[in-house]
């Protein structure tokens, strides 16, 4: 693995759109100011997006094509381009022997994802995947609740996420399950391991689904329901039912949770703090969303330098993509009782197999 020791890490930002502006820009500025990285190139075929980022990194090269980028082997490439070009950009970056931090999903197929990961191994570079939610204190706390079981065994998780695309959003390159549901699946697998059974339905009919529902079984006792949508504003929350309590997480809240212990008369909604210790010292709030995004990027830089093991590698996130692929291969039409009987009949396809077990 190439390491730059204490030198400033050159960084190529591939894709300067909404994701980069919203999620990476503050962390990039902070880490550049701290001398840990230097943004050397901004790549996007949308000139306006490039210019928007260039305001903050005026000395960075601006270009519409990766071929023109001047960056040495061992640089870090953040690949935040659209799904239609992401895996191609990753392939080019890896061929240039750049480490990569890629938005998920890294590809629309596991075959292509495997090939990219193999290339990363051959090139001896790091392949990190951006799943910032895994750095959220609330998400880590929920993992402890699921795995250490202080509220008893987990019985069920109900997950409802998504809504209409914001005005600035680009055209979708895939259905909602691949573009958004994969993040929810990644968390489920990180919390609970891979499911034993899964059934899936969506409303695609020749195109991209905007509503996707998955029902999952983990082990013998734990079930999960997932609904992701681009159609209507969802409740945007995950609700956990344990033997001895409930927990609720508002999607994308970094450090807030709601808990209700069985037998108590109220739920408690609050902000996660550092563990209570010496009574004279006030506990401080845990990391905010912005701080988590910063931590994610800082961690990747440290991992490149060999300072710590990479937390979220490409291999570790492959399972979620594999499950999305299985979903699409075995999808059933979503029940839409608000349509006419004739329309519902048109949308139904006969069930040719029972999807119930791992292959």
């Amino acid at each position: 693995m190439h390491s730059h020791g204490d030198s400033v890490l050159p960084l190529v930002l591939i894709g300067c759109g909404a994701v980069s502006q919203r999620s990476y820009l503050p962390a990039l500025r902070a880490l550049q100011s701290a001398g840990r990285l230097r943004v050397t190139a901004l790549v996007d075929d949308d000139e306006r997006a490039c210019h928007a980022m260039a305001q903050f990194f005026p000395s960075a090269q601006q270009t519409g094509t990766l071929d023109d980028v001047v960056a040495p082997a061992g640089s870090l490439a953040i690949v935040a381009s659209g799904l239609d070009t992401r895996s191609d950009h990753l392939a080019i970056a890896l061929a240039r022997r750049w480490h990569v931090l890629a938005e998920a999903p890294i590809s629309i197929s596991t075959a292509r994802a495997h090939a990219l990961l193999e290339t990363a191994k051959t090139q001896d570079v790091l392949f990190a995947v951006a799943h910032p939610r895994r750095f959220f204190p609330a998400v880590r706390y929920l993992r402890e609740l699921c795995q250490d079981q202080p509220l008893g065994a987990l019985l069920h998780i109900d997950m409802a996420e998504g809504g209409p695309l914001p005005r600035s959003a680009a055209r979708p390159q895939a259905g909602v399950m691949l573009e958004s549901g994969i993040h929810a699946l990644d968390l489920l697998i990180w919390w609970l391991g891979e499911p034993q059974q899964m059934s899936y339905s969506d409303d695609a009919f020749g195109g991209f689904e905007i509503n996707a529902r998955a029902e999952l079984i983990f082990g013998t006792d734990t079930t999960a329901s997932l609904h992701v949508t681009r159609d209507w504003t969802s409740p945007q929350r995950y609700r956990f039912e344990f033997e001895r309590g409930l927990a609720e997480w508002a999607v994308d809240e970094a450090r807030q949770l709601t808990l209700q212990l069985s037998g108590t008369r109220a739920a408690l909604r609050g902000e996660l703090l550092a563990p209570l210790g010496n009574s004279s010292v006030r506990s401080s709030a845990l990391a905010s969303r912005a701080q988590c995004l910063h931590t994610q990027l800082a961690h990747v830089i440290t991992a490149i330098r060999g300072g710590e093991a990479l937390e979220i590698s490409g291999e570790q996130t492959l399972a979620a993509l594999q499950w999305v692929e299985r979903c699409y291969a075995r999808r059933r039409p979503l029940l839409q009782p608000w349509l006419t009987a004739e329309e519902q009949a048109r949308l139904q396809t006969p069930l040719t197999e029972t999807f119930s077990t791992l292959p």
Partner: protein
Amino acid sequence: MKIAVLGAGGLIANRVVETVHLGGRGDVVAIVARENELPRPSRFGLETRIADMADASALTSALTGCDVALFAATDSAAVVEHTPSLVCQAAAAARVPRVIYVGSAFVHGRNPAPNTDETSLLQASSLLSADAAHASAERRFFAECQRLNLAGYALRPGIVYGPRSPFIATVAEDLAAGEAWLYRRGLGIFNGVYVDNLVHAILLCAEASNGAGQAYLISDAETVTWAELYLTASLELDISPRSLHDVQELPEFSPSWLDRAERAVASPVVQRALPLVPAALKQRTKSLLKAWNAPLSTETWSMPQPAQPRITPELGELQRAAWKFPFGRAHRVLGYLPPVKFAEGMRRSFAWWRFTRGETPPAY
């Protein structure tokens, strides 16, 4: 028939896309103004085109090859008033011979006079500003159709309800929050139309051999009171109808400074200038206005109050209606008869609402 559906992600347009495509009634070209509006029509692998209504060249290109162009009025008064002219001009340039415009029955007011029908005079001064904009838009539409020799049909539906309807969402949320209310026991007329009934009327216009150059009021078959509407909704949602507030007198509504500011922003002059305002400044202003409008914190000496009825000027006016909009002209000229009954329309509407809350089994 090849029908161009503008604003294809919207409530009415989306249902037209679904009905025509799934029912094999013709070919659909789904047109949206921005890429973020593509998801709904993109379920079907249809031809989609992107054209902002203000971009004449893009709109003309998007309409090319179609037999019919359909567009529905949006809520923004500034957009509503000018859209018909733009669409008609583009349709003429693209040689689309027929244009269908979905406006609003509330050009007659939300509490229409007895015996109101399509021939009743439209009194703009007595209308809410959004309704006055619709009235103006419809006049422009027919003027342009005549000038450009287009077969123009204008439909005037009341409250359009159904799956994906903001009205159904509001009814459901108000009932759940204990904020739903009835004016004087809800004896006023609910002037609504189930979306599939409106779509049926639209397709009749698309296929009609006569009847162009006229406006048509479109409604459900039944005369339904607001009490019946909320009772049906309560049953669908398993909420006690006793939670409904009975309001005997409506409050006086005078526009707040925020309402006046919003109307000023909606004016064509300001709308034209808005693109010149930096996005960050617009965002900060919106945040400031949102914070300014936030309710004051509760005085700590007061006990929590029970939920109060959420009364808006528009809903207040609607609940006072004593006249049901007729659809006689649509029946005589187009052969319109509402295919979906009110009870079935409400069942489907709340089936959709329950789905959004995750209460529906997932698959067939």
